[in-house]
């Protein structure tokens, strides 16, 4: 390649660059506005990506602890269930029998006897003649 040819190519390169720069400088406002919008959108993607990365970083330290946390939650739930199960009989007693029967349950009588003669005692309570006061002058006594 001759020196003259090299000079011509260099000159061509210079002119080409100048023509290109001129054309870039002549871009209309609407196109520039669209390009600005495109840039802002790209930067929004950047911000969104960094937010996502930040949230991911926040998750990272807790992720190794997640199984332990789940285990603790399960253990707590089990403990509550057991505790609740222990409460259930007392509640059943409180809600089930009438308060009037408390003295029986709290008394010293044999509960097995109550179980066996429960129907008898129920029948006995329904008998009015047995619960009514004795008539005066019936010759007894």
């Amino acid at each position: 390649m001759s020196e003259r040819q090299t000079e011509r190519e260099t000159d061509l390169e210079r002119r080409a660059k100048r023509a290109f720069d001129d054309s870039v400088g002549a871009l209309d406002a609407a196109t520039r506005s669209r390009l600005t919008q495109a840039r802002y959108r790209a930067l929004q993607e950047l911000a969104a990506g960094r937010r996502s990365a930040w949230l991911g970083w926040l998750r990272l330290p807790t992720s190794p602890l997640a199984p332990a946390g789940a285990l603790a939650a399960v253990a707590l739930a089990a403990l509550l269930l057991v505790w609740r199960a222990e409460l259930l009989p007392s509640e059943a007693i409180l809600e089930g029998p009438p308060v009037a029967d408390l003295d029986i349950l709290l008394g010293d009588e044999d509960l097995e006897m109550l179980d066996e003669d429960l129907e008898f005692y129920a029948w006995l309570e329904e008998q009015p003649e047995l619960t009514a006061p004795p008539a005066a002058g019936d010759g007894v006594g």
Partner: protein
Amino acid sequence: MGLALSILRNDLATSARGDDALDSGAAIEAFLREVETRAYRIALLGVRDRDDALDIVQDAMIRLVQRYADRPSEQWPPLFYRILQNRIRDVQRRRTVRRRVLSFFGGTESEDAPDPLLAAPAPSGENPLEQLVAHDAMVALEQALLMLPPRQREAFTLRNFEGLDVAQTAEAMSCTEGSVKTHYSRAVHRLRELLGEHGEEHWNERAAD
């Protein structure tokens, strides 16, 4: 422009040295602002459609920040232009496929649409005559560039218009530095032939400045 790009790179390098993400965000914004108009003109040269060119630039910007924002700022120019060139080729391939499909079904794309290159606004010169000369010079140059093989055109636009060095151009084109030198040399040689042999009056007038 090369000096401006160099200054920009120095500024970007200085900014990127900070560990603060805000500095990095400001640096990449400055980079995008610097390259967006030239990237648009290069995309327009490749696809000859304003909306497609704008979409290409936007996609290139988004992909750069999504994938390479954390890279050193010195790496952004070749990465950005590699993405840009890939997107330009994607659009060109889709058009080729579309033309084949239309041809198969007996249809044709409208050829009455105005050429955006020819319809491009005149440069903002100091007077209308200078604007006209500059505009015609660019039209002549673009018409000549369109006659080059794609790889030669890429090498020329990246080296000449964007001011990338040989190594950066090789990275942007995903080829060796030797290939860049070959493509660029052939592009310049062919452009000289086209712009000289066809006697582009306005180009020669511009050249006489």
